[in-house]
């Protein structure tokens, strides 16, 4: 069918999502990693890894860093004004997060973008990606929550004696930053390799910075062979998911239109089975979803999956869009006879 009418909606639904995301991520990466050089400061409540250790370049600061810092105070301090201040910080984080929901991971996060670049490099070398077995895939889901609880609890335990336990050493004041690959990788993009070190000033520091070095190595190797390797364990994702329900950007599914062909699952970097197999839920932003929208682009059913912003469809799956993206919309070898 030759539809002559041009519409913006049709153009959007037919877009090359891979290319769009590639450029969007580059712009976002530039703003987050180099924005500081042009005076950009989005504050310190960002729901993404805008690394505080990239002190000159960063265009804002990661809230997980801020959160650990805030929690390192005697509990009495939280009664009254400081408590409100803490809640306001958390609220600011939530407001930032609600704009893009998990889209922060799929479109903005510099660590996510780096992993996608590594994936591209692997694809070029024609090395197959690896996958977790479904059972292990299920098991590792809880790791990010454990990390989140630790990063919340450890700073509290430095300033307070919890359950009568002795207070923890100060070296654990930013426990997650110590082991976060972003601390090394992000400043490295501004030419600052000073974070690649092992701190011998105390036992705690030796342990934590060593783990940090190992994590960075794992990050590089892991995300080369496994798409979005780090995101499976990311405590930021866990923290975000707590606030995900009221977010403005959503991934919706109309299960009645789903044939369970599994094309979306194949496209999913996070191997989320529900995207293909759940035909009853409407909101498909699951805990590990990065809202990268690759599933929407890979879905061949009209209106089965859609990205929705405040009730308005902004990008939805269409048969036509699928065919265009898969280059199946025309016969390339028509001149054969």
């Amino acid at each position, binding site marked *: *069918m030759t539809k002559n009418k041009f519409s913006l909606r049709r153009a959007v639904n037919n877009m090359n999502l891979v290319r769009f995301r590639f450029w969007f991520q580059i712009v976002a990466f530039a703003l987050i990693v180099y924005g500081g050089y042009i005076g950009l400061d989005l504050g310190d409540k960002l729901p993404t890894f805008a690394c505080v250790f990239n002190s000159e370049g960063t265009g804002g600061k990661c809230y997980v860093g801020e959160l650990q810092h805030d929690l390192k105070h005697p509990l009495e301090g939280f009664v009254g004004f400081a408590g409100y201040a803490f809640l306001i910080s958390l609220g600011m984080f939530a407001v930032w997060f609600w704009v893009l929901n998990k889209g922060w991971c799929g479109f903005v996060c510099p660590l996510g973008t780096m992993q996608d670049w590594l994936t591209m490099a692997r*694809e070029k070398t024609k090395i197959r990606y690896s996958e977790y077995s479904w059972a292990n895939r299920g098991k590792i889901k809880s790791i990010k929550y454990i990390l989140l609880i630790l990063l919340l609890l450890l700073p509290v335990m430095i300033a307070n004696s919890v359950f009568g336990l002795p207070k923890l050493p100060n070296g654990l004041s930013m426990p997650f930053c110590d082991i976060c690959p972003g601390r090394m990788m992000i400043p490295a993009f501004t030419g600052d390799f000073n974070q690649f070190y092992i701190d011998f000033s105390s036992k705690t520091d030796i342990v934590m910075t060593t783990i940090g070095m190992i994590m960075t190595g794992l990050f590089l190797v892991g995300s080369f062979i496994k798409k979005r390797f780090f995101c499976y364990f990311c405590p930021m994702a866990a923290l975000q998911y707590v606030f995900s329900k009221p977010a403005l950007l959503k991934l919706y599914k109309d299960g*009645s239109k789903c*044939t369970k*062909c599994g094309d979306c699952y*194949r496209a999913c970097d996070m191997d989320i089975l529900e995207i293909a197999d759940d*035909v009853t839920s409407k909101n498909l932003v699951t805990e590990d979803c990065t809202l990268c929208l690759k599933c929407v682009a890979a879905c061949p059913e009209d209106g089965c999956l859609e990205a929705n912003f405040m009730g308005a469809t902004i990008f939805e799956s269409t048969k036509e869009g*699928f065919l265009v993206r898969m280059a199946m919309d025309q016969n390339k*070898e028509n001149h054969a006879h």
Partner: protein
Amino acid sequence: MHTEHTIETSAERQNRHKAMEAIAVLNSLKEDFKSPIRSMGYFYDLFEKVYCHHQPLHEGKAKIGTMCIQIPSEIIYALDAVPIRLCNGFYTDDEIGGDLLPQKSCPLVKATVGWFASDNFSDKPDITFSPTTCDQKTKAGAIIESFGHTVIDVGFPRTKESEESCHYWRESVKSFAVKLSKFQGKKLTRSNLESAIKKVGYAQSLYHKLTEFRKNKAVPILGVDMFLVTNAFFFDKIDEWISAVEKLVSELEQRANDGVNVAGKASPRIVYTGSPPIFPNYKIPLIIEQSDAIIVADETCSSNRMFNDMVAVDEWNLYDMIDSVSDKYLKACTCPIFTQNDDRIRRIIQLVRSYNGDGVIYQAFAGCQVYEMEQRSVLAAMEREGIPILYIESDYSPSQHGQLTTRVEAFIESLKNRKRMKK
């Protein structure tokens, strides 16, 4: 005067009988209905050429027989061979096969076995791949092999939800690709598989365009014609098929603009499901459309199931393309051989809703156990949804025509009444 008398050989008799079956259906398609479609001429001629005149289509090409839809045609095309799907709809062959299989076997399987037993092909497959789908197909492979044909089993799981099944089938497809590649003496490469996937994808997109017209109030194409078009994909040259369907699409577009309706204004719209109608066994579809109903969609493996779901590739490298192809043939499949089959029920409901169907006709071949067994669950689901459904059992024999017509007509009458009451 001395006249030469020759005695007809059994192969000649078989061909004559098959030609009679074929021409009867083709004539009916051509002449029994109003507003014939010009570009359907290609398909009528194609079937006449192959089944009445026994003309080969693929001389000089390797022909790869497939026993079910699960053998990926993308890989066959990539390796420069032609897939020939051997599901057979001829009563003549069914009778030959009947002597070799248990009495209560499925007529489709009997016909396929009969075809091999007589070894009378216009395009004889050089090698046949048999996915282990239903019991009868699975066992038929070994019987066919005993006639001296090369048959290779391709292990197919009977659950599709589990991880084990997914891996098992991916391995099966890989091993199929390796065997075929050896047989062809040709390597499967990134570029030949990529262009085969895109070509088959394009062919599927044309099918989707055709079906889109059937959503219209005035339906510009008959269900039986659609079955013929999809059936041609079993054995036709893919490029010829593509250009014929392109023409058909543009003619239907014209017809849709002109509001041409091949059915009546009040004709009930039928969604057809069950055992596949394969040429020339269009018995039930013909009865339906001769009784003033119109088939607007189907859920069968000779048509919708073959084209509906598409291969999506994330990384266009060989490893991901092969897995994508495998997954499509397993995960998207709504074949009743699977233990659970909610997907098939959901597909039927979705077809009824999106094609504005008035009722469902579920036909099972007598002896096609899996469709017979799934009948109850489908009927229950349709009742829940308030969708009228008729279940009929039939085979390839021409004998029950009167009885079947009465049942179908009665169902269609009741659908018409229902429609009137709604107004």
